[in-house]
């Protein structure tokens, strides 16, 4: 069964070395970037539109050529000069790029046909992939008769049919509506874990990145802002951009003196060692790491400007504590209303100091 033999093929190690991209019109899409991707690893390239993530994927795929000096390596082989058709990658496009002149089975089997796989074997493999992606019964449908989710599955089946060295996905869920996107994300996750092939996944959706990535590469203006596991990216952002792009974050600018931040609503101790220097600092605090307490005796106090009930929790906007209002996630069980004075408790370890960046 293909699930098993595809799982036996974990693909290649991918190295992007000093790859930059300047388009003919002079647009600089990618600064010189170097990235190593382990065999069998799923790496998500995450960033806002125009950050260079798709360009990087297309350079790995062989659809774009990096500027002179850049190299792409699969294991130790330099594939920089090879066009996409000779790199043995599997690619899922945002618009799926399914062939309207072929039915579902022929789309899935096309890569095998190109590789000269015989009709009988091709048929068996297509059947395996159809089962693997849960599209039984659609084999003889035309592409225009499929729903968005079905097309997505066909595109994925087609891409993995060739047992690619690396699986490349360019915003594969973006064209779908929210509910379907969530369901397919789980399915995709299961499938990627099962295949275990080196996967590079481009998205602008941080929830997708968190759920799918072994590692996330956050990109900004053509450069890598941070690389790390989802936990590292979330809890230990290295700069303000990453902190604000991933999840909700309070960015607090304050003076640091004697191991504590001087805030309008009180003094907030930071963890030992995280602050040797006194002076102006930028700190990040996640809303869920701020606890609401009674105002009396609290180190930090403020007043509730707004309460948004979300369901599993309520999000408060608390003014007067820091220079800018703080977002605070409170349990849904406590009773609180606009105008209440509250105390805020923050573990020193939950305060992350960020390097000051030039604006």
């Amino acid at each position, binding site marked *: 069964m293909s699930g098993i033999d595809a799982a036996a093929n974990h693909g290649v190690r991918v190295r992007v070395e000093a790859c930059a991209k300047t388009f*003919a019109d002079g647009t600089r899409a990618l600064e010189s970037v170097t990235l190593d991707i382990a065999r069998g690893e799923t790496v998500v390239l995450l960033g806002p539109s125009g950050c260079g993530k798709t360009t990087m994927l297309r350079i790995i*795929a062989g*659809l774009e050529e990096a500027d002179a000096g850049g190299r792409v390596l699969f294991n130790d082989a330099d594939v920089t000069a090879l*066009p*996409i*058709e*000779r790199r*043995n*990658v*599997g*690619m899922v*496009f945002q*618009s*799926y*790029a*399914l*062939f*309207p*002149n072929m039915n579902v089975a022929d789309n899935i089997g*096309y*890569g095998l046909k*190109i*590789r000269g796989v015989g009709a009988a074997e091709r048929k068996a493999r297509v059947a395996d992939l159809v089962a693997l992606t849960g599209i039984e019964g659609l084999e003889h449908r035309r*592409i*225009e008769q499929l729903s968005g989710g079905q*097309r997505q599955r066909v595109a994925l089946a*087609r*891409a993995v049919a*060739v047992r690619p060295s690396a699986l*490349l996905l360019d915003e594969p869920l973006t*064209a779908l509506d929210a509910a379907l996107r969530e369901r397919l994300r789980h399915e995709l996750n299961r499938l990627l874990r099962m295949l275990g092939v080196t996967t590079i996944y481009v998205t602008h959706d941080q929830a997708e990145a968190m759920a799918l990535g072994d590692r996330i590469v956050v990109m900004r203006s053509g450069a890598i802002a941070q690389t790390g596991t989802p936990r590292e990216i979330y809890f230990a952002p290295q700069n303000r951009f990453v902190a604000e792009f991933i999840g909700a974050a309070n960015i607090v600018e304050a003076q640091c003196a004697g191991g504590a931040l001087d805030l309008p609503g009180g003094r907030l101790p930071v963890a030992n060692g995280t602050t040797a220097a006194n002076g102006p600092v930028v700190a990040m605090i996640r809303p869920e790491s701020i606890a609401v307490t009674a105002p009396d005796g609290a180190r930090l106090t403020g007043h509730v400007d707004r309460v948004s009930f979300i369901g599993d929790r309520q999000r408060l906007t608390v003014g007067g504590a820091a220079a800018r209002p703080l977002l605070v996630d409170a349990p849904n069980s406590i009773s609180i209303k606009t105008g209440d004075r509250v105390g805020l408790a923050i573990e020193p370890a939950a305060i992350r100091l960020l390097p000051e960046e030039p604006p």
Partner: protein
Amino acid sequence: MRRLMFTAQLAFTLLVAAFLIVPALLSMLAGVTANYFRGIRSGLTLQWVAQVWELYADTIMRSFMIALATLAATLLIGVPAAYALYVRGGRLARTVEEIVTLPLAIPGLALALALLLTYGGFSDFRRSWLFILVGHVIFTLPFMVRSVIAVFAAIDVRTLDEGAASLGASPWRRFRDVIVPNARPGILAGALMVVTLSLGEFNLTWMLHTPLTKTLPVGLADSYASMRLEVASAYTLVFFVMIIPLLVAMQVFAGWGAPRPAR
């Protein structure tokens, strides 16, 4: 009041239509009238049509041969050219596309003159129907290229091309397996346009022909100049009978081949 407006508009439309159609009908009628100057009273006959066939059958055959050869040439050159121009893209591609389109803006006579000046000295070539073929290909190629590029844009052929490439297909396999089958409506529309234009082409052909390489429209001009009016009219009738099915087919394919959305 509204009814009156509608009636007035309908009457006006019919009047304009009649103004355009009646001359064509009269001309065709003249082709089957025994004596045009005595009118219909002189009786209907097919003798003029028969005479046209006798005198000009070779021009009709030649026209079809040239039209089909033109079609073959524009398919062989135009479809791959459109693929290269569209998929490669870029400034160079746009420049080439403009150059290919240029013959549309230049009078046929000027094109013919240029061909005569350049190749008129190669007398074997000058005397053969291939000389006319070259003119027709230059003139009809932009229609094929444009029509194919339009369908490429509609089905986002660049992504389809990348999709096929990602599965390992060489440029030729992509062209054969994915590009051409999905561009078929545009290729058909272009093909019909090329055949129709080639059959009816006069400007260029009139300059390029020799007495032995007359085409249908050149023969028509010849018959107007030197034959009875009835013969020339019968010739028009023959021309209509041949060209109208082509025009109808063109319309049918245009509607039928309206590109389906690719996703």
